[in-house]
């Protein structure tokens, strides 16, 4: 198994945000994670990316337990993510945002930085080329030298995905990438997801836009109140009475 979330529980005081959830994710799949607000989707992301230590259960990635590792060890293991509320380095340029993400694997040290300009220049050029290629994939290359904060919202979202890609991940966690996007932008995002998928990167997608999830994801896991209530293909999920009840019941109450 590529990525295995094994009986994961996450408890904050008396609140059980994630309750004994197990999900298996195959290499190269686009896996959707849906559920009403507060069902524990983002909490699972925070555990996966090392911001929380799970209260119970474990996460196995390529045969190795990664739950409990720190955020940068998990990045180094091959995970990258984006955030619901977008956390770009706002007053840096788009290019700089990507260069920072690549920097941690860099070979040039502080002394070389000062005394070996040739090696520095060569590395910088290699990184810049790779960054431009990623920005091109996300169709934001023309903004490379703009400040991140000056970009339109939809483009900032793409830059954040490009930055996540810049760490060379095996798994990318996207937390509501379509939030705040209009229909056309969402359709563009779906194409981008396909492009990323074609590069062999496994995608884990948390999203409220059900249409996007149904179209893009091969397998969908449905959560409700921290528990897994269903899992399967889009077609199967759509027909599942438990899922329909969770969603319709929710809407019926509103």
């Amino acid at each position, binding site marked *: 198994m590529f990525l295995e979330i094994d009986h994961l529980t996450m408890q904050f005081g008396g609140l059980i945000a994630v309750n004994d959830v197990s999900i298996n994710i195959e290499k190269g799949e686009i896996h959707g994670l849906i559920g009403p607000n507060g069902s524990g989707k983002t909490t699972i992301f925070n555990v996966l*990316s*090392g*911001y929380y230590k799970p209260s119970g259960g474990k996460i196995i990635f390529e045969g190795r337990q990664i739950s409990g590792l*720190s*955020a*940068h060890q*998990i*990045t*180094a293991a091959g995970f990258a993510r984006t955030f619901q509320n977008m*956390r770009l*380095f*706002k*007053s*840096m340029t788009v290019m*700089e945002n990507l*260069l*920072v*993400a690549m*920097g*941690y*694997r*860099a070979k*040039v040290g*502080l002394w070389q*930085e000062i005394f070996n300009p040739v090696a*520095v220049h060569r590395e*910088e050029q290699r990184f810049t080329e790779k960054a431009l290629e990623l920005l091109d994939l996300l169709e934001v290359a023309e903004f490379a030298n703009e400040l991140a*904060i000056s970009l339109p919202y939809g483009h900032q979202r793409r830059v954040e995905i490009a930055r996540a890609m810049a*760490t060379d991940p095996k798994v990318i966690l996207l937390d509501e990438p379509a939030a705040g996007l209009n229909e056309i932008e969402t359709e563009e995002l779906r194409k981008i997801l396909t492009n990323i998928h074609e590069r062999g990167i496994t995608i884990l997608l948390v999203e409220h836009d059900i249409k996007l999830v149904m179209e893009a994801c091969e397998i969908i896991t449905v959560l409700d109140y921290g528990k897994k209530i269903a899992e399967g293909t889009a077609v199967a999920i759509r027909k599942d009475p438990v899922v329909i009840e969770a969603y319709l019941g929710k809407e019926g109450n509103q």
Partner: protein
Amino acid sequence: MSVTSIFFQTLIGGIGIGSLYALVALGYSMTFRSMGLVNFAQGSIYMVGTYFGIIWYQGMVMNLHVPYAVAFLIGLLCNALLGIVLERIFRPLAKLDLMLMLLATIGLGFILDNLFTIIFGATGFAVDSPLPNTPWNIFGVRVLPQMALLIGVSFALMIGNQLFLSKTKWGRAMRASAMDFEIARAMGIPTNRMNALALSIGCMMSAAAGILAAPIVYVSPSMGVAVGLKGFAAAILGGLGSVPGAIAGGLVYGVLEALSAGYISSTWTQAIAYIVMVVVLMVKPSGIVGEITVEKV
């Protein structure tokens, strides 16, 4: 002397003292942007750095008289190490209440001031100028060679620091960890080490200011008190946490001080400089070069 040459004479004096404030203001801003705390010991760090360098030049250690340039580098190196130690001390403080951490840095300043008073005595001393004491005459403006050195080296250091921050990988990593340390850490940037580097640079700038100014001013354990306050005012004026802001703030503050002393009254220098500062902050609370970077506190 003509009216214009008097003006330029005053202006040069202001730029000289202003570059000193700018270097100290950089110390405040580098600490604030990286760790989110105001280090009120910065004035004492300026004093300590001055001693670390000047004692070798003045033959106060085993009667050694090392060249001024070497003493300068020793002072910078010692203060760089001090910066690393400070990061370790401040690390637990950065998580505390703002009031507590202000008190702690003020306390640290007192400790350093008193420690140096115990070691070197409360009375100060004058430092021999490494350059000739006869002023150069540049288009009717008289400039002390040491003053020219102070301005020249300060500007070189400030430009160098700016290039380091904006152009190098390490500078980028430092800026990233100042903007969002959680994300920076997730990207594999050792944020604590970046903070230590930021504090080291700030402390080195303060040492440079002190050692460059030592032959013009008077060296004593209390020399950092006024400069520390003015450096803080300059950092606020430019926009606390902003590197170009610290430089602009320092220069503007120094020139204001010199102009009000030259044209109005030296008794009112401080009052006028502070009034202008308050007015600027009322118009633009984020300072002259307010940055979006700093979202802390």
